[in-house]
């Protein structure tokens, strides 16, 4: 006889299964960059190592779950009371030292195995030697945006990290040095590697060697204030040619197009230059992102929106439209100034 | 009532349990030790991390002060002994002496701080050293103040003739706290004036 709650259970269980199947594990195991940054779709050595380790751990914990879970289920089912009036008491058993010993020793062995495997992997990833061919990038976390400095190339990138493809024949891994300008952030691009925090007054390291070109998404993974959710990350894995071209462009000073001189004037006379740098102009502020090559980026404000002239104009008019609480103030420019400065910024290829 | 089954098995024996006052005081001391541990760790961790301002070299070792405080542990123990044996008069004297020694310690700390603030310009907000120094020593001093208040209350009871032999147990529980405050000073002293300087 099914009472109401039980019928409800049956119905819901069916519904839930249906939903699971419905949203089946799509795209989870695909190769190359995905719009869903699944940790089970690794595209770089640290991420793959972790993935393999995770399969092993799933096997062990899954085994424990099945064993112990079925013991619980069996006990609950087999030893349930049959009928209300069966009130005699079962035999009382108070314990057994041998049994206790057995179920202490087996878990100890499992822990030893798990621990050794884990330890091996910690050292393999964390203490991996840095090859000569590696690229160095210094990442600085700011409240709600990323700064990517390439010390040896003299580039100061923002929000979108460009790194070269690394294949077995020409390993060019990227070694990241992680710093923070204000509070704790965390660098996380799931397909490329685990996350590592950016801690003020502390230097952390992380490395990646992506094997498939394309754009990998991730985001800040440590709550860092109002706009933590919009501190997105994009990693562009370029083929060697693309990367060389990108480097070349980034090393140029800012385009100086006389057609937009009014805009440049607005930029340099308003407070913009206190916070932003545009190489080759009077603007050398360091509080906000470097705008020298603003137009080489696909997004603005660390992924808050796409980089189109309309969005740019709206962003300058009122950053809160896309990112309420970002540390750039609305500059109260009039429409003409807005148009001019947008036109100017739009030339910064 | 059938207490029979119960009575059968139970051997007649004295049923003693620990004193609840003592247990509670030990628990409190356990909790307090953790607080001190955290402050000590913060102190040690930050030794030499100050970016500017005075360094621990400006500290003078408060030898006399420490002697006063530590000897108060002895006097309070003598007081405990006295009350246990019902010698209320001598209890009162030792107890008062303990109070005075503790008070001298506080005054000594006050003088030390006065010098640090007005001569060396070290306040709690000057630099990391100032922050950690005043917090740790201040935390201890605040415990001394609490202890002194408790000592004073008992002193008042003694003066008004309310303390009797039966109160020995409670007084010993209170004295435990004072011993703890003294013991912590040894740690603070070692960390601040010996290791940290």
């Amino acid at each position, binding site marked *: 006889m099914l009472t109401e709650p039980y019928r409800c*259970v049956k119905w819901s269980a069916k519904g*839930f299964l249906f939903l699971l199947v419905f949203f089946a594990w799509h*795209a989870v195991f695909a190769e190359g960059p995905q*719009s*869903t940054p699944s940790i089970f779709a690794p595209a770089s050595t640290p991420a793959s*190592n*972790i993935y393999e*380790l995770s399969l092993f*751990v799933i096997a062990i*914990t899954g085994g424990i*779950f099945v064993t*112990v879970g079925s*013991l*619980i289920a069996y006990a*609950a089912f087999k030893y*349930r009371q049959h009928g209300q009036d*069966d009130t005699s008491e*079962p*035999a*009382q*058993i*108070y314990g057994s030292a041998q*049994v*206790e010993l057995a179920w*202490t020793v087996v878990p*100890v062995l499992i822990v030893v195995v*798990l621990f050794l495997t*884990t330890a091996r*992997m*910690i050292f393999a990833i964390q203490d991996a030697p840095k090859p000569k061919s590696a690229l160095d990038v210094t990442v600085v976390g700011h409240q709600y945006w990323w700064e990517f400095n390439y010390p040896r190339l003299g580039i100061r990138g923002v929000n979108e990290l460009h790194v070269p493809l690394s294949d077995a024949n020409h390993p060019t891994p990227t070694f990241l040095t992680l710093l923070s300008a*204000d*509070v704790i952030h*965390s660098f996380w691009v799931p397909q490329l590697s*685990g*996350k590592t925090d950016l801690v003020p*007054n*502390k*230097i952390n390291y992380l490395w990646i060697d992506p094997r498939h070109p394309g754009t990998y998404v991730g985001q800040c*993974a440590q709550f860092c*204030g109002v706009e*933590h*959710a919009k501190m997105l990350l994009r990693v562009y894995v370029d083929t060697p040619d693309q990367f060389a071209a990108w480097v070349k462009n980034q090393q140029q000073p800012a385009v100086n197009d006389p057609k937009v001189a009014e805009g440049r004037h607005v930029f340099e006379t308003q407070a913009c230059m206190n916070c932003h740098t545009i190489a080759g102009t009077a603007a050398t502020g360091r509080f906000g992102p470097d705008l020298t090559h603003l137009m080489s980026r696909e997004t603005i404000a660390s992924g808050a929106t796409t980089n189109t002239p309309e969005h740019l104009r709206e962003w300058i008019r009122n950053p809160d439209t896309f990112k309420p609480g970002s540390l750039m103030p609305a500059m109260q420019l009039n429409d003409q100034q807005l148009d001019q400065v947008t036109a100017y910024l739009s030339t910064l290829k | *009532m059938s207490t029979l*089954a*119960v009575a059968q098995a139970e051997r007649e024996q004295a*049923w003693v349990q*620990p004193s*609840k006052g003592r247990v*509670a005081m030990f628990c*409190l001391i356990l*909790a*307090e030790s*953790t607080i001190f541990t955290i402050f000590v760790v913060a102190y040690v961790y*930050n030794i030499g991390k*100050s970016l500017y301002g005075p360094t621990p070299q400006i500290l003078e070792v408060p030898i006399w002060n420490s002697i006063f405080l530590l000897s108060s542990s002895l006097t309070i123990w003598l007081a405990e002994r006295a009350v246990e044996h019902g010698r209320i008069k001598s209890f009162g004297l030792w107890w008062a002496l303990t109070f005075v020694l503790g008070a001298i310690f506080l005054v000594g700390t006050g003088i030390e701080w006065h010098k640090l603030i007005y001569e060396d310009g070290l306040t*709690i907000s000057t*630099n*990391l050293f100032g*922050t950690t120094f005043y*917090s740790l020593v201040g935390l201890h001093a605040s415990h001394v103040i609490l202890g002194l208040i408790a000592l004073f209350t008992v002193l008042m009871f003694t003066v008004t003739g309310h303390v009797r032999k039966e109160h020995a147990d409670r007084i010993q529980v209170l004295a435990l706290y004072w011993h703890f405050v003294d013991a912590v000073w040894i740690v603070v002293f070692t960390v601040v004036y010996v290791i940290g300087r």
Partner: protein
Amino acid sequence: MADSTFPVPGALEAAPHGRRWSQAAFLAWLHDWVVTVDHKKLGILYMLYSIFFLLVGGVEAILIRIQLVRPDMHFLSPWVFNRVFTMHGTTMVFLVGMTYIFGFANYLVPLMVGARDMAFPRLNALSFWLTFFGGILLYYSFIGGYGLYGASSAPDTMWWAYSPLTERAFSPGHAPDYWALSLIVTGFGTIGASINVIATALCLRCKGMTLMRLPLFVWLNVVTSFLALLAITPLTAAQVMLLIDRYLGGHFFDTQAGGSALIWAHFFWIFGHPEVYVLVLPAFAIANEVIPVFSRKAIFGYPAMAAASVGIAFVSLGVWAHHMFTIGMTSVGNTFFVLSTMLVGIPTGIKIFNWVATMWGGKIRFATPMLFCTAFLFQFLIAGLTGIILSVAPWNWQLHNSYFVIAHFHYVLVGAIVFCIFAGIYYWYPKVTGRMLSEKLGKWHFWLFVIGFHVSFDTMHVLGILGMPRSIFTYEADRGWAPWNFVVSIGGFIQAIAVLVFAFNLVHSYFKGRVAGNDPWDAWTLEWATPSPPPAYNFAEDPVVTSRRPLWDIKHPEDPDWRYE
């Protein structure tokens, strides 16, 4: 079920009471509750407080789930969202988790050890009211202090409150102040209550109640209280440092002046990790009473159970940095904390196995308390295994701060603790009020809650695997997280309905429930030898016990327990 009065010395009939309500009577009644030093009344106050905040925290959870139901929702502003999830976590851990412990312990420990009250009744009242005012202070910041509007004064820095985000430079309002002050106040309450539990259990035991005869419930609450003394105080110390920084211009966590962000993280987790075991051990304590009674068997391996609890408490003091695998420790440091963390699994496993062994060969009665405990066993197993998964440091680099962690800890906090709280309430409600909770509503409550629970929190694991970080007020539409979030939110609503059923049951059964009698579950510990509800002095005569299950001995004189000790 047996419903007789057992001839235990001291069992008294409760005086029948009819009351006519007038304003004067109401004031007298209120006054009675406010000034009470009776452990049972304080226990009830603690429980009501805990349940009230469970509802409040639950409403906050629902707000979170509405905001995340699909991408780009504008239901809550980013500021409010951050406050809501911070308050949700803080409320659930400190105002629900830390108070249910003392609700059960206050009510039951004296009864179980055969005492007339706690060791320090007035300290007990003080502890409760400190906790109470701490909670009020926290919520004042949210409701009275413009926390729901512009200026920031409600906590909005996660329940970890990582520095330097909490320093004046980055949190100019009063958010961290309210957070720290209110938790310091409740912390003092916790210290007082813990001392009381320990002193009661160690010093007020009735004759014959040796340490090895204490009900496991009492054992675990003693261990919990010790752990609380060691765990809450580091937090208090760190919060005092934070306030020194904020009010006196100190530099403990001021990274600009050479202070350290790391040291806060360490201090917080030195508190935070033992804290989660402080929360879970009393839940185990409840299971330790419910499972044997409903399986009709003595607990299997009593000494092992007690030892395992002590073991868990000990090991848990040395594992805190598993919350900090991504903060940049050395590889050796990481390795150490992997090992210590995994070791916790061994004593915990012992507990699970002993529970199963207790059920094994029994005659299990699936009344509502047992249903909740069975679900607890399953869920805690899964939660523990995801804990082991998280302790695998390299994998943790991926999973940390993702929804997988959220799933892990809700599995423990809800799937283990809240389930055990419910079990405990269904089990002891008859003792406290004299009436049974409705079994029918109880079954509805159970099944709805189990379903809601699994729909929500099973799904969250997937979100973590798919790379969704926590603490985000919204997410990008193209990430593929939307359908999963939708399912999670649905589960949240189902849980809410279940909780409403529960709340209704609590109130309804108080007036209409079946009269319970002294011992409705045919149980074995001393509290069931008193009338329901017990009189103010509990036992007219001090009881004397000869085994772990005094009532079993009386009910089964032919086969008493003390023969086997």
